[in-house]
């Protein structure tokens, strides 16, 4: 591999940097409101599904409490990141604002459901039972799918 004279190398390097810079700019800039909301809903649905699976396995004695607690914690973190992406939205049209409001309400509900599930797994006295945890997650999943059809139809 010969070293080509300096100038073509530096021009090639600046081109590469420009591409990367454009790429990161594109990555962070968010698409339309509905795109962000639908991705957020999708990620939250995945997080809630993980929580339901982990909770089911834990109560069925297939999963240790430590692993279940970690899975639920990761799901909560995933939910919070999607919620933050919706919060950061600044919609211009009234419909977008309405969609964002609704999404935030549903995601709020999911976070509450997830917390109930985490408490049930922690299982210290006075904590909700596994059944309540499961019930809360089912509700959250239901509301998420409703929101998904609504946002999807937009």
């Amino acid at each position, binding site marked *: *591999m010969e*070293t080509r004279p300096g100038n073509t190398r530096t021009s090639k390097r600046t081109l590469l940097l420009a*591409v*990367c810079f*454009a*790429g990161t700019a*594109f*990555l962070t800039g968010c698409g339309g409101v509905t795109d962000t909301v639908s*991705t957020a809903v*999708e*990620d939250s*649905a*995945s997080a809630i*599904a*993980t929580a*339901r*699976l*982990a909770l089911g*396995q834990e109560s069925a*004695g*297939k*999963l*240790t*409490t*430590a*692993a279940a*607690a*970690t*899975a639920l914690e*990761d799901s909560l*973190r*995933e939910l919070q990141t999607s919620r933050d992406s919706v919060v950061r939205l600044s919609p211009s049209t009234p419909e977008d604002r309405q969609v964002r409001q609704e999404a935030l309400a549903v995601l709020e509900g999911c976070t509450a459901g997830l917390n109930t599930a985490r408490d049930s797994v922690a299982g210290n006295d006075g904590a909700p039972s596994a059944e309540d945890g499961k019930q809360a997650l089912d509700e959250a999943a239901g509301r998420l799918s409703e929101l998904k059809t609504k946002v999807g139809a937009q």
Partner: protein
Amino acid sequence: MKRILGVALGILTAIGGFVDIGDLVTNAVVGSRFGMSLVWVVAVGVVGICLFANMSGRVAAASGRATFEVIRERLGPRAGLANLSASFLINLMTVTAEIGGVALALQLASSVHYLLWIPVAALAVWLVVWRVKFSIMENVTGLLGLTLIVFAVALFLLKPDWGNLAGQALAPAVPDEETASSYWYYAIALFGAAMTPYEVFFFSSGAVEEGWSIKDLIQSRINVLVGFPLGGVLSVAIAGCAAVVLLPAGIAVTSLSQVILPVAEGAGKLGLAFVLIGLVAATFGAALETTLSSGYTLAQFFGWSWGKFRRPAQAARFHLSMIITLLIGIAVLSTGVDPVLITEYSVVFSAIALPLTYLPILIVANDPQYMGKHVNGRPVNVLAMIYLVIILAASLAAIPLMIVTGAGS
């Protein structure tokens, strides 16, 4: 009898050593989103790593020169330094991902937050690199990594619809809710996970560490040609478990805890115990290999004395560079950045940087001054040229695809 034991040990270590955090996460993500439709990439990657590892093992055995000495000598300083900085940065990213992986695995076993495990994991890695003999280190982590076979066991216990799985694998098609660009992005990520450059740095430096000669090559060839494909089968099993359990439930893998849920589903707490041991061993073994690789890359390029077979005092800069690498890894992880995210980026950047180390090894493997009569045969060269084209294509397509798909989101 001893010989058979040696051969078996070599194969088992190759299987255990093949899977690392990159394979675990990428295969699980791909399984949970694309089912089995990307399994062909694992096959392409495994054949590639077998070819690449054999070539670099032969270069090391025939000429006693490990990868980065060869790169410096044949590419000259300017191209060599560009090569070194790219490979070292990606290796640093992989070290960070591996140590993060060890911490996440320990969190799963103990539910102590992973951030607390990171310094413990890094210190343990350093202690092993500092004192434990090279072959013992390789064999223990490799054998313990074998417990990841529980993924295959769990897949059987889940009694999946084998016809459907085989159908997806043999007739790959992009699932409807995924775009073609994210399909190809994850193809490159999977290829990068299978053909990680650090495996080759470690493999060729290991040949020099253990003082291989040409007659030892037969043993290494068996290890590679049997061990790596079986390691590939393990990766496919990980993807299979995700495809059978996570895909239908609409779970897209973003954390290590999701990766083990299918094993718990299929094999219960016993299976879970095995997979946790396997996770810790595989990621810990990979953390050792990547830390050593960062030391090897720097020491071999700058001509320092290196190698675990020497007293640490006789390879001072080699050991110091590894200590610094581990400290950087701890610093990056303590900022709270998600290790799984680092892993996803590290496998793609591995695919981008692959030509930088593949081409020099291919050149030297044909150079009679280094290889004497052990130069590449014609069939190996034909296959190697085909793979050069594949590797260049993957490397060039990676960044545009990363931009288009927003890193696969």
